[in-house]
C-alpha cells in the first residue's frame, strides 16, 4: 500500500494524549446514550434479529426488489439511473447538472458520495457543492474528509470550529460559542438553500413496495434542499432497499437509537413523487457491491444501515480517530467494507482491531464484524499482501511451535537471555518495551516444574 497505514496514522494521533482522551470520552458518551436508549426498548434484541432477517431476505432477492422499486418509482414520476461504479455515478450527476445548466448544488449527508469522491470530481468540473449538514460543512470548509459517518466533525473541538468559521464565514475571532456558531452557519446555509436549483441527498431506506425513499436527518437540511430545488437527486447504494413500508417500523426504531441514542431522528422524510414542476432522480450505485454479495464470508456486511454504533463502541476507533482509517467509511464496518473496494490499499484495516467483538454486539443488523475482520486477515495474507518480515516471523514462529523439542529449547534459551542479558529484549527495537515492561522471568517453565514434581 502507498501512504501511511492505520498504525502509523494512529501513532501520530496518539502524540497528543489529552486529545485522545477527549475523543475517546466524547464517543464513549455516545455509546452510553445508545445503551440507555436501547435499554428502554424491552424487545431490543428481538428487533435486531428481525432487522437482520429482513436484510438477509433483501440480500438474497436484491435484483427483484430493485426492479420492483424501479417500476413503482418510475410510475410515481421518479427517474431511475443505474451506476456500475463511482465514475458512472459521478458522470450521471454531472450530466443532470449540465442539462439544467447549473454550476451550483446543495448536498445533504451522503456517505455514498464520499465513497465516490463526488465533491472532488464536481469541483474539477467547475461545480460548486455546498454540504449542508453542519458537521459536513465544517469539515468541507476545513478541507478535510469526515472522520465519522454520523458525526462528521467529531474530531474537531469547538474552538477549532470557531477558527474555521472566523476564516470562512467571518465570525468574530475567538468566538467558540456553539449556539452562536450554529446561528452563523444557519444564515450562511439559508442563502445557499434559497439560491440553489439542484439538491442532492442520500437515502437511508428505499421501499420496494411503494417506490418511496426515506432520508433521516436531525437538521432538516435534506428537506430544505429538496423542497426548494427544482431538481432533487437522491443517491443510494443498491443495498439500501427494504421490501415493505412496514419494515421501516423496525429500522427507524433501530437506526437512531444505535447512532446517537435518540428515539428517532428529528426528520424522517419520505419522498415518493416529484411535486409539480420538479424533477426527482434516484441513482442506484453498485461500486463493488455485487462482487461483495458473491463473497459468502463477507456478503452480510451489506446489511449495514450506517448507524456508526460500531465506531462509537470501538476502543481502537476512539483512540485512533476516523482519519487513521484513510477511507470514507472508517471504523470496524469500514475495515470490512474497504478491502472489498481495494484489497491492497486497505490491507492494513482488518488488522486495526483487537477482535474484541464489541462491534458485532452493538450492530443493529447483527453483522458479524469481528469475525469478518479475522477472515479478511486470512484473505489478505493469502493474497500475498503481508509484509515479508511478518511472513518470515510467522514461519519461524510456526516451526518452533510445531516442534515440541525446538519449543522447549527456544523457551529455555529465551528465558536465559532475558535473565542474563536483559538488554537483548529491553531496548528500542522491541515495540513491547517502548511503553511497557517485559514480564518477569521465572527460573523454570511450568513444563519443567511438572516434570520435577508430578512425574
Amino acid at each position, binding site marked *: 500500500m502507498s501512504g501511511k497505514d492505520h*498504525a502509523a496514522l494512529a501513532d501520530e494521533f496518539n502524540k497528543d494524549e489529552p486529545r485522545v482522551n477527549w475523543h*475517546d470520552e466524547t464517543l464513549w458518551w455516545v455509546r452510553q446514550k445508545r445503551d440507555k436508549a436501547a435499554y428502554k426498548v424491552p424487545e431490543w434484541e428481538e428487533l435486531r434479529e428481525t432487522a437482520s432477517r429482513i436484510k438477509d431476505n433483501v440480500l438474497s432477492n436484491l435484483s427483484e426488489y430493485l426492479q420492483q422499486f424501479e417500476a413503482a418509482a418510475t410510475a410515481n414520476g421518479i427517474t431511475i439511473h443505474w451506476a456500475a461504479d463511482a465514475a458512472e455515478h459521478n458522470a450521471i450527476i454531472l450530466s443532470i447538472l449540465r442539462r439544467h445548466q447549473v454550476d451550483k448544488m446543495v448536498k445533504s449527508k451522503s456517505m455514498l458520495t464520499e465513497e465516490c469522491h463526488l465533491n472532488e470530481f464536481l469541483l474539477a468540473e467547475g461545480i460548486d457543492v455546498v454540504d449542508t449538514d453542519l458537521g459536513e460543512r465544517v469539515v468541507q470548509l476545513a478541507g478535510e474528509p469526515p472522520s465519522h459517518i454520523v458525526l462528521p466533525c467529531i474530531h474537531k473541538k469547538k474552538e477549532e470550529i470557531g477558527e474555521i468559521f472566523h476564516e470562512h464565514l467571518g465570525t468574530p475571532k475567538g468566538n467558540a460559542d456553539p449556539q452562536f456558531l450554529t446561528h452563523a452557519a444557519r444564515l450562511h446555509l439559508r442563502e445557499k438553500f434559497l439560491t440553489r436549483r439542484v439538491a442532492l441527498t442520500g437515502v437511508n431506506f428505499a421501499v420496494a413496495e411503494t417506490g418511496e425513499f426515506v432520508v433521516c436527518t436531525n437538521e432538516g437540511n435534506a428537506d430544505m434542499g429538496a423542497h426548494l430545488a427544482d431538481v432533487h437527486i437522491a443517491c443510494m447504494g443498491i443495498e439500501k432497499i427494504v421490501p415493505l413500508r412496514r419494515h421501516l417500523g423496525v429500522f427507524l426504531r433501530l437506526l437512531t437509537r444505535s447512532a446517537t441514542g435518540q428515539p428517532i431522528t428529528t426528520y424522517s422524510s419520505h419522498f415518493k413523487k416529484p411535486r409539480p414542476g420538479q424533477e426527482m432522480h434516484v441513482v442506484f450505485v453498485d461500486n463493488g457491491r455485487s462482487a461483495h454479495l458473491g463473497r459468502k464470508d463477507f456478503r452480510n456486511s451489506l446489511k449495514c444501515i450506517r448507524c456508526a454504533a460500531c465506531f462509537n463502541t470501538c476502543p481502537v476507533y476512539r483512540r485512533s480517530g476516523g482519519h487513521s482509517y484513510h477511507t470514507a467509511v472508517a471504523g470496524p464496518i469500514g475495515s470490512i467494507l474497504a478491502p472489498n473496494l481495494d484489497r491492497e490499499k486497505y490491507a492494513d484495516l482488518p488488522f486495526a482491531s483487537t477482535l474484541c467483538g464489541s462491534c458485532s454486539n452493538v450492530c443493529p443488523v447483527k453483522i458479524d464484524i469481528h469475525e469478518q475482520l479475522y477472515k479478511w*486477515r486470512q484473505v489478505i495474507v493469502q493474497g500475498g499482501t503481508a509484509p515479508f518480515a511478518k511472513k518470515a516471523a*510467522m514461519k519461524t514462529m510456526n516451526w518452533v511451535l510445531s516442534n515440541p523439542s525446538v519449543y522447549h529449547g527456544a523457551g529455555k534459551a529465551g528465558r536465559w537471555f532475558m535473565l542474563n542479558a536483559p538488554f537483548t529484549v529491553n531496548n528500542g527495537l522491541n*515495540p*513491547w518495551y517502548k511503553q511497557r515492561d517485559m514480564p518477569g522471568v521465572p527460573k523454570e517453565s*511450568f513444563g519443567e516444574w511438572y516434570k520435577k514434581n*508430578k512425574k
Partner: protein
Amino acid sequence: MRVGLFIPCYVDQFYPQVGIATLELLEKFGCEVVYPPNQTCCGQPMANSGFEHLTQGCNDLFIRNFEEFDYIVSPSGSCVLHIKEHLHGVGERGTTIPKKIYELVEFMTDILRVENLEASFPHRVGIHQSCHGQRGLKLAQMSELMAPGFSKPEKLLKMVRGLELIRLTRADECCGFGGTFCVAEEAVSVKMGKDRVADHLHNGAEYITGADMSCLMHMEGILHRQKSSVQVRHIAEILNSQL
C-alpha cells in the same frame, strides 16, 4: 474424570505459577489431571495475524496431545476460544476437542458446579473481563446486549474469603493486548492498556484479576512501567490462595 491440562505457551514460559494453581485447583475438586509434556501452542498468534493456513503443525500436535481426554481445561479464555472456533479436523478427522475444551472458570462453574471454595484473599480486586472469554465464551454478560446480567468469574470470586470486588467505570472494555496487535499497533494498544489500568486504579483496586494471562501481562507491563504497587493475579491464583 480425566482432564488434560492445556497450558498456553506464554503461561508455560512466563507464568508457571498460573499453571500450578490451575493444576492444584482441579485436583482439589477431584479431577485426575494430566499435563501432556509435548504441548506447545494453540496456533492463535499466527491465525489472528492472517496465517491460519500455516497452523496445521500446531493443530495436529494439539489433537495428538489432547484427543484422549474426557475434558481439556486451560487457564486462558482466548486460547480455548481459538481451539473451539478454528481447530481443523472436526469434520474429516472426527475430533471432539472443540466440544470438550473448557476455560478454567467455566469448567468450575458449569462442569464441576463449584459452590464453595476454601480460599482467602483479603484485598480489593478488580476483574478484567477479557474479550474472548466474555464475548466469545460468554463467561459474563456483555454490556452491549440488553439481557440479564451474570458473571461466572464474579460468582467464583465471591466465594473467596475477604475478597472485595470493585466496580469499574467501563465494565468490559478491551485492554488492547489483542495478540500481535500489541506490537503492530503499539500506540493504540498501550493507550488502551493505560486507560484500562487507570479505571482499576481510580476505583481502588489493589489487584487486577482475570481469566486471561495475556491481557494481564500487558497491563502488568504498564503497571510496572508506571511503578504502581497494584499487581495482577490470574484468577486461578486467587481461587487457589490458601486460608
